[in-house]
């Protein structure tokens, strides 16, 4: 009785097998077809990679000034002071030093640059990037909105073709003004620029760490 009740299921495996095999057929060559002959052609193409290379020089962050001697927080040569301490990696100007070399090693691309929040050694409260000038992405809240406020800092990159009214890096990648020679920030393959960095510290810092990590990232992007 029980066997009879499931008897109708017996053809199911066979049906599934047939269905699966149906798609595995191969098409035979038509009768009378000629023999195929092949030739091999060797072809070389230009690279189609978008890439970049950054080389730092041997310079150190230095030439620090600013800060308040009365508070014993004045900058020293290699240490940033408070408030409004300023340090350089390189030296701006006509006889400047530009220790970072950025080279577009891939196809023609726009070169973008961005900064990061400064991270203290104890991973406490960082300093966020701020900007000055018209329509800043993140306005500096210090004196007259011209300098960083509490837990803010300002980073500008400069080059032999510097723009003096530059508002500073943001944490969102944007056109590197150093590459803005003709239009946009286009760099063809092999194009390189040398740059330096200016860093202005906060009016005051919540975190008391004395070692901070700042990261600056360059990136080629599609035009």
């Amino acid at each position: 009785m029980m066997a009879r009740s499931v008897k109708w299921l017996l053809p199911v495996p066979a049906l599934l097998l047939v269905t699966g095999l149906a798609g595995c057929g191969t098409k035979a060559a038509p009768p009378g077809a000629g023999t195929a002959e092949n030739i091999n052609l060797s072809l070389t193409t230009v690279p189609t990679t978008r890439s970049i290379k950054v080389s730092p020089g041997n310079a150190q962050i230095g030439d620090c000034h600013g800060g308040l001697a009365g508070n014993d927080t004045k900058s020293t040569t290699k240490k940033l002071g408070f408030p409004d301490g300023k340090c350089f990696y390189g030296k701006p100007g006509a006889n400047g030093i530009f220790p970072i070399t950025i080279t577009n090693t891939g196809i023609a691309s726009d070169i973008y640059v961005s900064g990061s929040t400064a991270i203290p050694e104890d991973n406490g409260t960082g300093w966020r990037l701020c900007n000055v000038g018209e329509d800043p992405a993140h306005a500096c809240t210090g004196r007259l909105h011209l300098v960083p406020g509490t837990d803010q800092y300002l980073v500008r990159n400069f080059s032999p073709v510097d723009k003096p009214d530059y508002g500073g890096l943001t944490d969102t990648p944007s056109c590197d003004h150093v590459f803005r020679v003709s239009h946009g920030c286009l760099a063809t393959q092999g194009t390189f620029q040398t740059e330096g960095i200016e860093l202005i510290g906060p009016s005051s810092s919540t975190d008391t760490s004395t070692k901070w990590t700042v990261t600056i990232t360059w990136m080629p992007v599609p035009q």
Partner: protein
Amino acid sequence: MHLRLWAVGLVSLLMLAVPAAARASVGVGIQAGPVRLTGAAHPGGTYALPPVYVVNTGTQDESLSIRIERLSAGQGRAVPVAWIRPGAVVRLAHNQSARIPLELVVPGAAKPGQYLTDVIVKGSAALSGGGANLDVAAATKLEFRVAPGVVSGSWFAAPFWLWPGIGIVLLIAAAAAVARKFGLRVQIDRVPADAAVLPAGRGDDGA
């Protein structure tokens, strides 16, 4: 004499080492052609995008990772980051390359239309430039279209219950075949009610 030879050798090695250190660099590359989904995606569907080509163009080992962020100008809706699941981080030596898989997960409530974002490969081996970390990344476009309607069905995109269901049916069929072959039978005999009365003297009461 020997001392002089050692000194010359040491100076030569130093002369070779200094330019090598000065040339240290970080670099990454990514395919220039955009990552494109073949055909249209549908709300609720999951799709394997073509793996993206990445290369370490720097002088030292790098761990390369992928992130999604809209940088390119152009037509197309922005793509929420959660829609794209990149593959694992890859560690590459100088001039080594790899392909990192990407998966597109379109939510059921996705609006139809053309979508555009960028795939960004980022290196981990930032070089220290006078105290600041100098880092690199590279971007390429990611494009796809979401068409209205449900996910188009295929053998491999079948509902989750289909394959277990087929398995159960096959098991039942196999069990039925075995039962038939070995003659397993269940027989129920009906006994008349009056015949169920026990004969005298066969009781268990011991009376």
